[in-house]
Each structure stands twice: as structure tokens, then as C-alpha cells.
């Protein structure tokens, strides 16, 4: 069972899933950094992105790049809507009430999707050139896997450059360091919050397409587990650290794949359970994660 081929294959699969978790974690950690909010509704945007791609590409028959551009636009729009409708009022109140609001929006979007698309899962197709299978001596993969890894890494690199090199990115980092101090320095916090939501939501929407393409089917509730796992990735990497979130995503992806691949067959059904088991272990052993600061209170 444990041949080198099998091992590389599983590591590769883990990296593909890890790339998607890393993208989600990236968006969530930016929002967490600025608002101290676990953005549950982030998961819903994955579903919205996947179904919008289904609509544009498979129903309307738009060309692939146009469909991708449109779902990014839809994701960004959802970000604006969430920001304006949901959080403008809740920001500044107790942290728990933002969390509850976010949860409410998650359930709202998920069930709206359920109402529109019915509970059945949908078969998800990508253009044929993304579906080709390549077999190498050590590895078998599809073009979509390469697409996921390349696009994810590109987004992460651009995001990191944006955060480190641009004025807007610097303002973002300042805000997540201390909102109060950033405001005193003349940073328009509302704008920072809006930009974070737009970026994070657009990334979530495109991740939705990736998840759909990888699994080959989409359903109204596909975003929930992915969204919560993204938070687990953040905890692994260290809350508040952007590189940590990305690294955490990859670690989580590989750990999850390994738990499916190397545990006895009966345990594969525990996949989601294992992810949370890892979370609880990390919270016990090293709650600050790999790159994070200590957040222990008592």
C-alpha cells in the first residue's frame, strides 16, 4: 500500500486541496484581522461562486475566461452587499453579536441557494482542456489540478505583494494591528473594511469554482465545511498571520488527505471529524499556531 507512487499522489492531492483551503483562509484571516470576526458567511460565498459559474458557463454557455471574470465580479459584489447590509451596523458592538450576525447570513444565503437550486447536487463540468488526464511515472493528475495550484499561488503572491508594497495594503496591516491607532493616523477604516470584504469575497467565489471542478459536483451546502476548515487552517498557521493562514491551509489539506489515505478504510468517513480533532489538539498544545502571537487570556 505504501508505495512511493501512492505517497506522491496523496501529497499532490493534499497540495491541491491545501491550495484551496489556503485561499479561503487568506480571505478569512484578513477579515478576522481587521474586524476580529470569524466570517462564517465566507463559506456561503464559495457556494454562490460555484453556482454562478454553473449558470454562466453551463447554462448560458459563456466562454470560460468570461465566466471566471463574472464570478469574480459576483463575489466582489457579494462582498459589498455583506459589508453594507450586515456588518456596517454590527461593527463596534460586542464581538459576539458580529459572530451571530455572520452566522445568520451564512444560513440565510445557504437556504436561499437551497430554495433556488433545490437540495440535489449538480454535476459540474469544466472546459475539456481542463479535464485532460496526464499520467506520469509517479503521478496522475488532471489539468484542473495544475490550474488550481498555479492560480492559487498567483493569487497568494499578488495578495502578499499588495499587502506589503502598496499604500492600501500597508493601511490594511495597520488597521489589523490596531484599528484605533490606524484611525488616528487618518486611515479611512470603513474603506479598508470594504476593500477587505471585496477582496476576500472575490477570492472565495473563485475558490468555489475550484472546489466544484475538483469534486465534479456542487450542492447548496458545499461551502459550510470548507469555510469552517478554512478557520481551522487559520488556527494551525496562527491567527492574524497571513503567511500562517496560507501555510495552515496547505498543512490542513495534506493532513486531511493523509487521514483519508493512510487510515484503515473504515475511518475515511471520519474525514471531517479528524479535521476538528486536529483543531482541538492544536488548541490544547499550541493555541498560538505556527506564526501567531499568544492569545491566551487567563
Amino acid at each position: 500500500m505504501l508505495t512511493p507512487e501512492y505517497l506522491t499522489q496523496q501529497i499532490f492531492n493534499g497540495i491541491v486541496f491545501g491550495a484551496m483551503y489556503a485561499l479561503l483562509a487568506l480571505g478569512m484571516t484578513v477579515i478576522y484581522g481587521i474586524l476580529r470576526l470569524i466570517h462564517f458567511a465566507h463559506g456561503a460565498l464559495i457556494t454562490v461562486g460555484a453556482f454562478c459559474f454553473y449558470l454562466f458557463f453551463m447554462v448560458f454557455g459563456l466562454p470560460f475566461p468570461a465566466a471566471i471574470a463574472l464570478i469574480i465580479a459576483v463575489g466582489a459584489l457579494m462582498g459589498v452587499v455583506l459589508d453594507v447590509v450586515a456588518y456596517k451596523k454590527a461593527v463596534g458592538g460586542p464581538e459576539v453579536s458580529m459572530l451571530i450576525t455572520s452566522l445568520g447570513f451564512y444560513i440565510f444565503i445557504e437556504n436561499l441557494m437551497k430554495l433556488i437550486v433545490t437540495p440535489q447536487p449538480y454535476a459540474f463540468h469544466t472546459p475539456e482542456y481542463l479535464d485532460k488526464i496526464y499520467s506520469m511515472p509517479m503521478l496522475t493528475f488532471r489539468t484542473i489540478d495544475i490550474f488550481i495550484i498555479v492560480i492559487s499561488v498567483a493569487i497568494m503572491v499578488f495578495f502578499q505583494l499588495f499587502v506589503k508594497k502598496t499604500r492600501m495594503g500597508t493601511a490594511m496591516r495597520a488597521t489589523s494591528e490596531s484599528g484605533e491607532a490606524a484611525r488616528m493616523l487618518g486611515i479611512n477604516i470603513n474603506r479598508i473594511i470594504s476593500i477587505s470584504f471585496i477582496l476576500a469575497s472575490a477570492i472565495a467565489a473563485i475558490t468555489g469554482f475550484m472546489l466544484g471542478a475538483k469534486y465534479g459536483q456542487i450542492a447548496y451546502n458545499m461551502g459550510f465545511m470548507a469555510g469552517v476548515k478554512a478557520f481551522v487552517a487559520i488556527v494551525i498557521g496562527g491567527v492574524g498571520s497571513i503567511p500562517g493562514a496560507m501555510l495552515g491551509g496547505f498543512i490542513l489539506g495534506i493532513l486531511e488527505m493523509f487521514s483519508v489515505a493512510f487510515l484503515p478504510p473504515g475511518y475515511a468517513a471520519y474525514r471531517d471529524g479528524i479535521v476538528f480533532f486536529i483543531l482541538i489538539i492544536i488548541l490544547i498544545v499550541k493555541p498560538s499556531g505556527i506564526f501567531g502571537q499568544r492569545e491566551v487570556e487567563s
Partner: protein
Amino acid sequence: MRFFNTVFSRLDKRILAVVLVAALFVCLWIANVILSKYIIFIISLIGVYIVASESLNLTNGYTGLFSLGHAGFMAVGAYTSALLTFPVKSRDIFVIARLPAILGGPEAQWPFFPALIMGGIFAAVLAAVVGLPVLRLKGHYLAVASLGLMVLVTALAMNLRDLTRGSIGINSIPTYTNIWWAYIAVLITVYVVWRVVHSSIGRAMKAIREDEVAAKVQGINPLKYKLLSFTIGAFFAGIAGGLYAHLSGAIRPYAFSFNLTFQIVIMVVLGGQGTIAGPVAGAIIITVLRYVLKPLEEALQIYGLVELVYASLLIATMLRKPEGIMGARRVVRKMETSIPTEK
């Protein structure tokens, strides 16, 4: 004179409480006689939800934590109680393992009450084990960790087939829970929560909710009280789960999924976090709403309607009246880390 005044006013309150309780039970008795079995079932179910939401209120409302694991604790209580009380004769037919020697041996079948309590204890122990590391951290970690715990419990219920029969679930559970069991449990839960909240423990919990640093300065150990509220909450959640199992007669892992947690969270938030009457009102409104909307949803074939209405209620409550129906507006001091929106 003042002494007599206080004694009298206290006595007055007690008499009032006794009269109210008596009135409630007379109403229930009348209802039990005249109403149909289906309505009685819904009324009992409301009782079960009141136990669940009132106990979540202790954690989420009074201590200011945010637990999403309530359905997990209910599942623990439900499975424990169902497995302990399952009749010996039908165990082999339904492929349910007999009890091990430590729980009374293969011929044993527990009576309802101790099984119920045992379910609560298991849930409380689980809460203590998970709570001890997680409650040291900032509040939102508990939200995700408790959610994770719930997923873990559901995964175990799905996959420990020898014990739980997996996704088929356990059916033909003896239906012991009736309107009396449900509402006596409600009474006990409300009384315990009321006593806890009006004791030094409750004041410590509220102090932690308002300002943890200030509470620490007063010599309150936050971990101790957070753990206490989380554990007591889990205990009653276990009881609620047990009552639910013996009310519906069948339990499946999916019954204790995220939707159940979410439903109980809404009951607490809608009714009013940190009030005694809030979760009661919330449980009644949400359960009645469910049984009114469910036939509509099925008739129109638009699945998701009930949850959509729930979510809208939750969002509307949070944005318009965050203190809930029964809550009084509290002045909340803005936190240091929060960002003012007004320019």
C-alpha cells in the same frame, strides 16, 4: 421593619411563583385532556427546546461565550439515554449491543430517570474535557471548537455502527417522555438557571461577560466560571437530548446536525440573551413557527423556507433589537479593539 419588608416581599414572590407554576400545570393538564396527540407532542417538544435553549443561555447569554456545540451535547445525552433504557428483549432484534458489566450487565435495562441523568453527566464530562483547554483562549475559539466538537460527535454517531447503528439511527426507543416529564424538566432547568444567575456564581459570570479584565481584578477566576457555565449548560443539553430521544422514539445522527444548534441559538438570541424569560419565549415562537411553516414548505415544494425565515429573524434581531424580545436594552461599553464606524 425593613427585615419584615424583605421577608414579606420574598414570600410574596415565592407565592407568586408557586401560583404561576400551579397555573401552568393546570393548563397543561387541561391541554393534555382536550388536545390531540399531535398538539401534545408539539407542546412537549417546546418543553424540550426550552430546556435546551435555557441551558445554552447560561453559556451564551450570561457568561458571554459563544458555544455552537449544543446539538453535540444533546446527541450525547440522547444516545446515552436511548442505549441505557433500550428493552433487553428487543436488543437482539434491533442489533443493539447489550450493556457491559460496568453498566449493569447484559440483562440490565435502566429506568428512565437515571438514564437521563447519566446522559447529562456524559455531556457535562465531555464539555469539561473540551472546555478546559479551549476556554483559556479568547471567546471566538470556543465557537469554532464547540462547532468542531459537534461535527466530531455526529461523525462518531455515524460511524460507530456497533454502538449507534450508524446513519440508520436507533428507533423504537421507549417513549417515556410525556408532557409532565418535559415540563418538570423545564421547571427544574429554569429554577437551576435562576438560582445560578442570582448567586455569586452568576454575578461572576455576568462580570466576565461585561469586562473580563475588570472581573479578574476583582479576584474572579474567569476560567473557573466559564468552565462552570459551559459544563452546567452541557449537562442540561444532555438532559434535553435524552428527553428528545424518548419523546420522538427515534434518533438519527443527522437530527443533531448544525441545523439543531442553529435553531437553539436563534431561540436564545430572538428571545433575549441573558434573560430567564427570553429562551422560553424564543423556544415557543421558533417551534410554533416550524410547525406552521413546515406544511407550507412541503406543499409548495420550496425546501429551505423554514431556515430562511429563521435566518431572517436572527439577522433582523441582531440588526434591529440585539437584546431580543424579552431583553432590556443594555448599555454595552464598546470594546477596546472595536472600530467605531461613525465618522
